[in-house]
């Protein structure tokens, strides 16, 4: 299986650049994510992983280049960003749950307000989703009554509730205590198994190896290397990738 192909492209990123003031964060990103495929974005903090995901979800405006979702140029100024975001899901590193709402309310808000689903149906689906991610019985708990791992699973259920075409995961385990990482990764694995198209920014190399069909190494705002996990993580071609992996090894992160 060729790493660039693998089904119809759901997401395509072409020549995307993004600068915050003088600081160039993305310097020309090209990336294709085929349907049912998971692409892991790896790279040091500050390499642009989060910014890339935010650009895809139109939370940041790209300076140059284009993003396509199912062939449509979503970065076109004429495209309504709200409609695009309804077709994508984004999970944040810090969960970003709504603290004034229960777990169930967090999950159904988008269904009801963005997708116009009635309360009864939305809640039924929301309960099923929470149960699926091991949160049956916690529907009425507020975020501050849940552990970090539970909060992140609620956040995943929330992002998934709008039946997105693709899920964008932004270092979803980085804020968690080590013993809680497993349960969140299990939720992602579960979504992968059902064929969810995903872009996963992560520091968990073993997880990238296990779940991702492809790994893309971001460095200095560019994708330096992209390919199947076993190739990029075990036999990297680029010196920058080798250096990054060596540093992770030193830090005991692999």
């Amino acid at each position, binding site marked *: 299986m060729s790493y660039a192909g693998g089904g119809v492209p759901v997401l395509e990123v072409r020549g995307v650049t993004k600068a915050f003031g003088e600081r160039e964060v993305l310097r020309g990103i090209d990336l294709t994510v085929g349907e049912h495929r998971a692409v892991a974005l790896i790279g040091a903090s500050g390499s642009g992983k989060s910014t890339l995901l*935010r650009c895809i*979800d139109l*939370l940041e405006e790209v300076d140059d280049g284009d993003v396509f979702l199912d062939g449509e140029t979503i970065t076109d100024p004429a495209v309504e*960003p*709200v409609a695009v*975001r*309804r077709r*994508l*899901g*984004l999970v*944040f590193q*810090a969960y*970003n*749950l*709504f*603290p*004034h709402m229960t777990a169930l309310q967090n999950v159904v*808000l*988008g269904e009801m*307000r*963005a*997708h116009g689903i009635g309360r009864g149906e939305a809640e039924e689906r929301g309960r099923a989703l929470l149960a699926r991610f091991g949160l049956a019985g916690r529907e009425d708990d507020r975020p*501050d009554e849940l552990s970090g791992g539970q909060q992140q699973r609620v*956040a995943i259920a*929330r*992002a998934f*509730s*709008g039946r997105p075409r693709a899920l964008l995961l932004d270092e979803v385990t980085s804020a968690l205590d080590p013993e809680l990482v497993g349960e969140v990764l299990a939720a992602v694995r579960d979504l992968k198994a059902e064929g969810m198209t995903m872009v996963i920014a992560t520091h968990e190399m073993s997880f990238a190896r296990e779940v991702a069909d492809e790994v893309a190494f971001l460095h200095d705002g560019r994708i330096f290397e992209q390919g199947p996990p076993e190739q990029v993580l075990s036999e990297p071609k680029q010196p920058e990738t080798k250096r990054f992996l060596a540093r992770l090894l030193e830090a005991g992160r692999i």
Partner: protein
Amino acid sequence: MASTALVLGGLAAWVLTSPGWPVVRETFFSWTVFRDSFPEVLEGFWLDVKLFIVVEAVVLLVGLAIALVRTSRAPALFPLRLLGTAYVDLFRGFPTIILVVLVGFGVPALRLEGLPTDPIVLGGIALTLSYSAYVAEVYRAGIASVHRGQRDAALAIGLSDRQATRHVILPQAVRRVAPPLLNDFVALQKDVALVSILGPLEAFRIAQIVEAETFNFTPLIAAALLYLAVTIPLARVVDRIGGGPEGAVR
């Protein structure tokens, strides 16, 4: 505890044994004057309460509208944002009492058709102008205190900017600023007495009239007690809301 009681007891003894105390007791704390003036003062106080409720409701809406304009980032709203800033600078900068006089005597002097001439309405407008500016700033602080990730998350699930504000940002912002907001309620509740300058017979004005007739200040004490009867329960509400988990900043 014991030392506090000692200090307070000493202070009380010091006042009660002062040479002027019998006169002060008679002119400030006369039971007969209190009994005779209380119904009248109470009647005036109802006007204060009604005015307070109406002004407060309008202030909450106007203040919110100004805060929303000032915190919006849409380039098209730039002129409105500027106007909002000017409004707050202007009306928060004025002493409320000057505003009451300017509006209360200035607007009728224009002799324009359709403008209100009722001093209660004019006084209410002056109080609204002043307090909206304060309350707008309280709301604005609350909106600014909600983490930016909350709006991101709301947008990410497909909400529009307006829906994100309404369902995610405002509920959190208002909960956080409920104590300072209620604090402004208490201040407004008292400042309603400023309308007396324009002549309406509210509690303070009536108390002053009775005082002038009887040469006795007790009616003012009666008015003060009525204000306390409203502001102290309000303060307890502030405490309760401020102490709840919802008010806690995460």
